[in-house]
């Protein structure tokens, strides 16, 4: 009995040695979101809002290339997301909203619907879950995307294709969705 217990303990100890200690997906997603959110808020406040709205030296425009203007904050974020996807960095992210101006950015999967509703109903809280897309299972985290500057609110409230026109500063306008394949 004592011998069996010793063998069992030794195997358990060895198994523990072989196990890599990783970062929990939630923690990893939170860290990635903090970078995305910091860049997004900085670009929105210190570039777009300052130059386009306050100092009015350049416009921010959807057709920024043609019109020699600044990319909109949502476009800037999508450009980053596409570069990350192209590099096959091991995760993907997207900016979605139930009130998206571009309808391709409305929630598409069941978990996206559920998560965006959750962060809207529970300000300040994040949503975590798993879902299968194609043949792959993903860990999916959804974070509130808050109106950090008057530029966000005025643009979305005034856009002819915006399905909602009563956004206020500090309100959740959509969500940042981060995914890892499991």
């Amino acid at each position: 009995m004592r011998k069996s217990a010793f063998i069992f303990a030794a195997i358990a100890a060895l198994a523990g040695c072989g196990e890599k200690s990783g970062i929990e997906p939630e923690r990893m997603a939170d860290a990635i979101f903090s970078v995305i959110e910091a860049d997004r808020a900085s670009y929105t406040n210190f570039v777009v809002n300052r130059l386009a709205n306050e100092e009015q030296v350049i416009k921010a425009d959807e057709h920024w290339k043609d019109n020699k203007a600044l990319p909109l904050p949502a476009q800037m974020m999508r450009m980053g997301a596409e570069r990350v996807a192209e590099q096959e960095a091991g995760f993907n992210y997207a900016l979605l909203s139930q009130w998206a101006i571009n309808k391709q950015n409305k929630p598409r999967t069941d978990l996206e619907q559920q998560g965006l509703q959750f962060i809207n109903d529970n300000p300040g809280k994040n949503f975590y879950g798993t879902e299968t897309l194609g043949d792959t299972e993903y860990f999916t985290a959804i974070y509130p995307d808050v109106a950090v500057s008057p530029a966000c609110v005025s643009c979305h409230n005034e856009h002819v294709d915006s399905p909602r026109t009563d956004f206020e500063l500090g309100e959740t306008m959509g969500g940042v969705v981060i995914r890892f394949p499991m």
Partner: protein
Amino acid sequence: MNNYKFKFWHYGLILTLCAAGLITYNLEASDKSYFLGGEATHGHHQLELACTTCHGDGFAGEAFIQQACVGCHSEELEDANDSHPRTKFLDPRNANLLKQLDARQCVACHTEHKPEITHDMGVTLASDFCVHCHSDIAENRPNHAEFTFDSCASAGCHNYHDNRYLHEEFLAARIGASDLVANGQLPVRNLVARWKQANPQRHSLSRNDADMTFPGVPEDTSAGIIQQWATSTHAQTDTNCSGCHVDEKMTFTSAEIVELCGSCHVDQRENFTQGKHGLRLSPATPETFRKITGAMTPAEAVIPMKETSGKPLSCTSCHYAHETDTRYAAVEACLGCHNDEHSLAYRSSAHFKAWQADSETGVSCANCHMPRETHGDRVVINHNQNHNLRPNEKMLPVCLNCHGVEFSVSALADEQLLENNFSQSVTNRHDTFRLIRERITKKTSSK
């Protein structure tokens, strides 16, 4: 030997060996034409025997083929501000859509060597392919409910890749302009003026400065050549005979001509070898292919050409070697080969009449198909005549120099007008402008 009795299998063996020898010769030493899996599209037919460009060693997989597409077309797609770049489809949330149509791969929509299913733009899908991802368009844009999905990617509405000149803001900003712009004019060429400005110490040359003699050439012929050169832009820009006839070389292949001219006219050579005229001389093709097939000849074209045109194409097919007459290159050279309805109708068009009266304000073949592009203070003639050909809205920046946007889009979308080279008035205005006006009204009233 005479008594040797051939058995049936002997004949079979000899036949097999002969066939194997012939096939091996075609693969290793000839043009590989036996291995062509089917006629290539109009965009690639010049290169259909440059197999390794797209297929590598023959066993290269999808990734190699995708890279081959991107290798040649990525710059063009970037310029076009591609509406559907591959990166757009890498998000896992598109997994279900990709099961229906894997838009990450060019060949999902453009399968080569399948002439029986190839449509305009080399697309090998049914023409209502937009429905795969945009089935809910009527819900998001109710004014689109009246349209069918096979009409999305039609002239004047949308393109899959290039919508630079079709998006709402571009059209809305220009709507209402008159059909004919007052004092409309193309950008003025400035190559020689810029050269003179950059080289004030150098001077134009005259007949007496020619630094070559022509041994064995009749005197009146050589005098004629020198006279042509003396009135050319080459003489104006201090380029003497020996600048081209290095070591007194007198005969050149098409490839050598393109190489020689390109040593000074770098942009022109790059553009020329990107278009159908010069594609076979592109450095992107294997050297063995260039050696075996040589330059493109008009007789090998898939559109109607005149029977009299036949020499391999190079710079001097359109520009005389010594005269460099751009008026000839802009019309006569084109019509010397092209024999389709659009080309044949040109001389009856208002564009031609205006060009005959004044080549600076009129419109030649080259003015539309080899557009003058402004890059900073440089006005460059784009020598890739396919650059703005398909989809034809890519030609709008040229048209808009002289015409209003509504007139231009409507003309480019009218197949009859394209065929008769705009020899009739534009009577049918494109429906897209009705929708744009509705949007403008909606935007105004929502403010």
